[in-house]
């Protein structure tokens, strides 16, 4: 779904980013809402800011739009320092979380509003208004007032209004927050399609990680005002750089451990929760005794009655809980130490005679390449 076909300009050190945050902080009184953020977003990206409530996503977006002034640092759009540029002169448009449609204007007038500010000739305004209304499939509702529309329709008008000015950057603050799951998924797809068609750079705030994963070219994970990690959805999920990101994105089994032996491509760690050492693929040398966290995703953990093959990491325990989700089941396995590990299994058959059940003794196993050692 995401525009993964596009090249990856973020890997090209020579590429000039469209948006650049340089050491940007924002304090409200003593409270630090955004803390020393450095960030580069490239032309044509669908960039998502993901993080828990109150971590500063909206504040970051509002600084980009010009509604808040950074306490420290600078923001550049297309190489221009935005410090002295008021919101009405910035080449960005925002789709507000509350939509902020003008209640006294028709849908048409709402969309034409921004174009009128540019003093475009009336025929151009009419044409463009019609074009974006068609783009979001709201042509039929051109003469309605916002209060005569459903939530989903309002949200499309808000999107159309922000798109009409063909900004360099479109900012979206939880654009789909108000929609039910079905409509939300349909609209996600629609947003990505629209982005592909108009080629505008999108910066979207969300706290729905599934949404961020499906739509984004890259994700910036935020944690109390700081950027914890920036990367593609795959990077963020498969190679989190810290305990916070590993824990925040998706489900994760984590063990506290200490390094026993470190090689060029793997590391052996001792884990008090497990009966024996673990071997994990890792490229950096770690001094012996370094405290680390081992992370393995539930779907990477195989569950079986029989002892797993040599060369795999394994653990032994009993089934403590089973969550049946239809397509998959999640097994909570209790180790001897009392530690619990989650393992996810796809339900391949309608019925399974060898089905695992509560208190069954089982083996868990995972490949050294499918676990991570986290030092942060």
């Amino acid at each position: 779904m995401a525009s993964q076909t596009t090249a990856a300009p973020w890997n090209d050190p020579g590429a000039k980013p469209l948006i650049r945050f340089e050491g940007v902080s924002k304090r409200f009184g003593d409270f630090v809402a955004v803390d020393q953020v450095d960030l580069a977003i490239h032309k044509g990206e669908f960039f998502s800011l993901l993080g828990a409530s109150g971590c500063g996503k909206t504040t970051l977006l509002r600084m980009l739009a010009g509604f808040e002034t950074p306490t420290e640092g600078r923001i550049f759009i297309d190489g221009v320092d935005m410090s002295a540029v008021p919101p009405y002169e910035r080449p960005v448009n925002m789709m507000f979380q509350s939509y902020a449609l003008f209640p006294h204007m028709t849908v048409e007038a709402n969309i034409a509003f921004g174009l009128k500010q540019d003093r475009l000739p009336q025929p151009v305004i009419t044409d463009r208004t019609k074009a974006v209304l068609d783009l979001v499939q709201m042509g039929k509702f051109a003469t309605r007032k916002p209060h005569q529309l459903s939530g989903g329709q309002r949200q499309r008008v808000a999107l159309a209004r922000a798109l009409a000015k063909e900004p360099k950057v479109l900012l979206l603050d939880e654009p789909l927050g108000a929609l039910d799951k079905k409509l939300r998924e349909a609209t996600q797809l629609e947003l990505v399609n629209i982005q592909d068609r108009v080629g505008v750079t999108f910066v979207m705030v969300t706290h729905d990680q599934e949404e961020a994963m499906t739509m984004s070219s890259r994700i910036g994970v935020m944690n109390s005002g700081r950027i914890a990690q920036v990367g593609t959805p795959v990077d963020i999920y498969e190679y989190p750089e810290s305990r916070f990101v590993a824990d925040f994105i998706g489900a994760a089994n984590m063990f506290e451990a200490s390094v026993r032996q470190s090689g060029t491509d793997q590391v052996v760690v001792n884990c008090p929760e497990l009966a024996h050492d673990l071997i994990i693929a890792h490229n950096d040398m770690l001094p012996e005794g370094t405290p680390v966290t081992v992370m393995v995703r539930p779907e990477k953990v195989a569950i079986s009655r029989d002892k797993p093959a040599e060369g795999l990491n394994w653990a032994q325990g009993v089934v403590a809980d089973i969550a049946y989700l239809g397509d998959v089941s999640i097994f909570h396995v209790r180790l001897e130490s009392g530690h619990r590990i989650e393992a996810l299994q796809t339900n391949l058959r309608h019925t399974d005679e060898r089905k695992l059940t509560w208190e069954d003794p089982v083996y868990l196993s995972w490949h050294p390449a499918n676990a991570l050692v986290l030092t942060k």
Partner: protein
Amino acid sequence: MMDRLGTGRLGRFLVGLPPYAWLALFFLVPFLIVLKISLSEPSAGAPPYLPLWDWDETGALAFHLTLGNYATLFGDELYAFAYLNSIRIAGIATLGCLLIGYPAAYAIARAPTAWRQSLLLLVALPFWTSFLIRVYAWIGILKSEGMLNALLLWLGVISEPLQILQTDLAVIIGMTYSYLPFMVLPLYANLEKMDLTLLEAAADLGCRPFKAFVAVTLPLSMPGIVAGSLLVFIPAVGEFVIPDLLGGPDTLMIGKVLWAEFFDNRDWPVASAVAIAMLVLLVAPIMIIQNARTKAEEAGK
């Protein structure tokens, strides 16, 4: 189910009763009494009008309805002139209230939350002093040797004292001052609840702050402007005290005419006709327009 519905209706009826009873007792009944007097013939006795009906010598019921009082209103252009002048003066005063009240209400609504209550209290503060005393105070300010003239003379703006007191201007100043809170309060209520992200949206779409005010804030505050203007205009038209104290002998306003008919001429029926005519000619159309506007707005929703 029926039962619950029944008590629901009864409950609603009981809750609605006091306001209606209040309106009937203090608005409808006095109105009917005035209407009745306006249709009676004047007399020299007490009360100074004849009953609407009585029994004649034969014992039959006889009505003495007359439209003569209304004919008087149309016959003498003094009345028409007084009506028009009242509307003119009240209209200017309403405009004055709007010009001062809108920025005031806007400033209060955009002030830090902690200040708003205190600022609103300041707007309402004059109510703690008697209305009459405040109008008398304006005599002290506006008269030839009053404070305003003294100040202007001292500043050298004028060389002769201005004759402000006993002119229409004094009446307009007095009305603007007296009715200002009635403009500020509804406007404040409206501006305060406005969604400020709309202004951010306007700025985001390339609109400068002043244009955003004209294109967004002003139209959205229209209900407040209308409510405030009606609250000022309607009582100002019938105002008696301010024109009497601050106006001159030729400041002709319908309130003064009414007073003169009532107390100087002791012509209660004509005075009542003046009052009824004012209500019918002025308040009724405004109410009807307002009602239609509200309905149109609701239909639009």
